[in-house]
């Protein structure tokens, strides 16, 4: 498929006011509100367009399998530092559009922190280019980061350039037994010290701490933190194959300040205390809001109440105005982020 074909398809749909459902591998179909519209499969527009390890940048088309991108980077000792979850046969474009980050997020930054540029097909079918392949770029508004995590509501991300980093030389996981309050306290204390903590996971009285870095840094930190060195499957938490995630009860993702005290229900905690997964109902929205964060209904059979936390009227108006700037006909993934968009 050519980029022109994608652009023609969108322009034609805009003329006919026909809703389009932009979709890569479908691995995140469950995420956000229900998708509707005629399917646009982005997988045919694929391939790594440019990769220069010494530039720390990879540029790939939307349909490129995320696994292929990661394999290409691994061959040269590099990685996507935000460890995006795949949740199946994920594509590169879908990964950027969903904006999700994995276990290393608290130390390395989120997906949006690594976005350097995008080629976007907007709701009029125009092919636009923002940002680029360089580390620093303040020419024009930062549209590239705005579309990261926008779930295809502003445009089809045809191509993206992401900053990459060298893989850590050494990695090890320490396991400590402690209750939730002590775990939260420890994670926040360590985050305030110059330690190479690259991931944390607390669940059911057990805290796992991953260290990544140079050999002397990891060795020194292991001594400071203590606990037993274990082999831990960080992929299970990244891909949500950990037993906690099994079962069909509504799964909530609470994004809160890391110092938020224990919330008083059974959870799995990541990101140094800032990401808390739990089962429950709509009341969790209020709990997260009171803590200074927000709750997302991540996986559930019924999302009629909306997957994402409601926005205040000023922000919602700005969202609608921005949607209108990018997609005046309102045809791209309508309703996927918010019913009003």
């Amino acid at each position, binding site marked *: 498929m050519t980029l022109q074909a994608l652009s023609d398809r969108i322009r034609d749909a805009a003329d006919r006011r026909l809703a389009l459902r932009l979709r890569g591998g479908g691995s995140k179909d469950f995420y956000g509100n229900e998708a509707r519209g005629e399917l646009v499969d982005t997988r045919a527009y694929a391939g790594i367009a440019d990769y220069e390890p010494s530039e720390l940048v990879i540029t790939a088309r939307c349909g490129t399998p995320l696994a292929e991108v990661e394999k290409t980077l691994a061959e040269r000792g590099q990685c996507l530092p935000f460890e995006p979850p795949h949740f199946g046969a994920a594509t590169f474009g879908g990964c950027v559009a969903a904006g999700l980050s994995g276990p290393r*997020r608290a130390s390395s930054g*989120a997906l949006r922190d690594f976005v350097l540029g995008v080629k976007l097909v907007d709701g009029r079918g125009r092919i636009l280019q923002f940002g680029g392949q360089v580390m*620093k*770029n303040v*020419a024009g508004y930062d549209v590239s980061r705005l579309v990261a995590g926008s779930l295809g509501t502003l445009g089809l991300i045809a191509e993206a350039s992401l900053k990459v980093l060298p893989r850590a030389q050494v990695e090890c996981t320490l396991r400590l037994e402690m209750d939730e309050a002590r775990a939260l306290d420890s994670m926040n204390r360590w985050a305030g010290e*110059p330690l190479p903590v690259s991931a944390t996971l607390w669940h059911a009285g057990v805290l796992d701490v991953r260290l990544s870095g140079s050999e002397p840094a990891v060795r020194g930190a292991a001594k400071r933190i203590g606990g037993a060195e274990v082999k831990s499957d960080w992929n299970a938490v990244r891909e949500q194959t950990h037993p906690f995630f099994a079962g069909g009860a509504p799964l909530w993702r609470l*994004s809160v300040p890391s110092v938020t005290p224990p919330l008083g229900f059974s959870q799995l905690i990541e990101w140094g205390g800032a990401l808390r997964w739990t089962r429950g109902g709509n009341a969790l929205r209020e709990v997260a809001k009171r803590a200074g964060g*927000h709750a997302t209904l991540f996986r559930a059979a019924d999302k009629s109440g909306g997957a994402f936390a409601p926005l205040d009227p000023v922000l919602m108006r700005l969202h609608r105005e921005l949607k209108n700037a990018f997609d005046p006909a309102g045809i791209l993934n309508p309703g996927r982020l918010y019913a009003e968009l």
Partner: protein
Amino acid sequence: MGEALSLSRRHEVARALRAFLPQRAVLFEEEDTRPYECDGLTAYRQLPMVVALPETEEQVQRILRVCSSMQIPVVPRGAGTGLSGGALPPGDGVLLSMAKFMRVLRVDPRARVAVVQPGVRNAVISEVAAPHGLYYAPDPSSQIACTIGGNVAENSGGVHCLKYGLTVHNVLRLRGLTIDGEPLEVGAEAPDAPGLDLLALAIGSEGMLFVVTEVTVKLLPKPQCARVIMASFDDVEKAGNAVADIIAAGIIPAGLEMMDRPATRAVEQFVAAGYDLAAAAILLCESDGTEAEVEHEITRMEAVLAAAGAVRCTVSRNEAERLRFWSGRKAAFPAVGRISPDYYCMDGTIPRKRLGEVLNFIAGMEKKYGLRCPNVFHAGDGNLHPLILFDANNADELHRTEEFAAEVLEKCVAVGGTITGEHGVGVEKINQMCTQFGTAELELFHAVKHAFDRGTLLNPGKAVPTLARCAEYGRMHVHGGKLPHPELPRF
């Protein structure tokens, strides 16, 4: 507008603002407004119609309401250290100085955040965090003077952003007011906020979307120690290639800066940093972390630098020496200011692998225009700061400087880079925006602006050129027979 009319307009606006602001917070006599006529880009000057100096968020809100109802342009300003004219005042509007917003509202060492007002200086944040072993990472060279509000507007960097990121990576939340005075908050102390990433959109938006009244920043633990290598090269291109070799070896230095000989010579006379003046170029490569970690990384970097052809490597032996090595880099602009009546600082960013090529191009331009141009770079980021030396009193030199700069910036775009890495577009690089972007992108930028500011009152005319302006600029700059924006009507 006729002079009498504009005078009466000025009094009308001043009266409306003095209805709720103290007299000393509304300036309109020329002697009072003169200090605000320019920012760090002094080649562009304009007296503002009125200067407002609010102290509270409520006052800002009322100022914005007055301006939006009277259709008066508003330009926010921090310390005025910006290098692209982003705070150049409106001759027919209000310059909104945020200088009185100087309070640090909260430092939470456990959560590693600080909440500050926008007029707080960059360096102050690290000072108040220091007792807790924490600091604010972005460190633009102007950090003792520039404000966090200005940093947010420009997405400022510094010498450590390869490893620690830019302003956009270190700000968690902004509170502000729209042009209509509506309060809004973007971002959160949580890792993310629901909806579109308006925080990322706001950072680097050059004061065009809303007025920031409060900034929450991330604080990082201060590394136990840091050491810097000063590596000398007998050839500028070799130094450029050594930068790529370090990155290719899997090392992300805490800082990776380059200066050529004309720059080190200017600096050495000014601060005696101890630079190797025999070298055609020097690299400063910093490592930070624990003692053992730094020792390990310094050894690795020295090996890479030697293999890349460094003729000498000097490692800082103590903190005083490390700071001395950096003092020269941080003083590069004022040092150059002493050897020339004026200098013009560029800010292009290029892929690292094109460094040698662009340096040779700049050397060619020095000959073509008969002007000297020392170079300092954030080499690790590919961000160049060539400094063209000229005399502003000589109209021809000024003109040649502008042509020189335009050619260099267009070269940056041609090799896959950008016209500005960290200083912003402002008024200075507005014509080059027509080279960097096509009509559709510029139209979208204007649409984004209108989503926040329908009447185009906030910092109007900056950062994004009108299509008419590009058409005019395109007519003057025809390259290889190809006219940019051929679809636009010409005058």
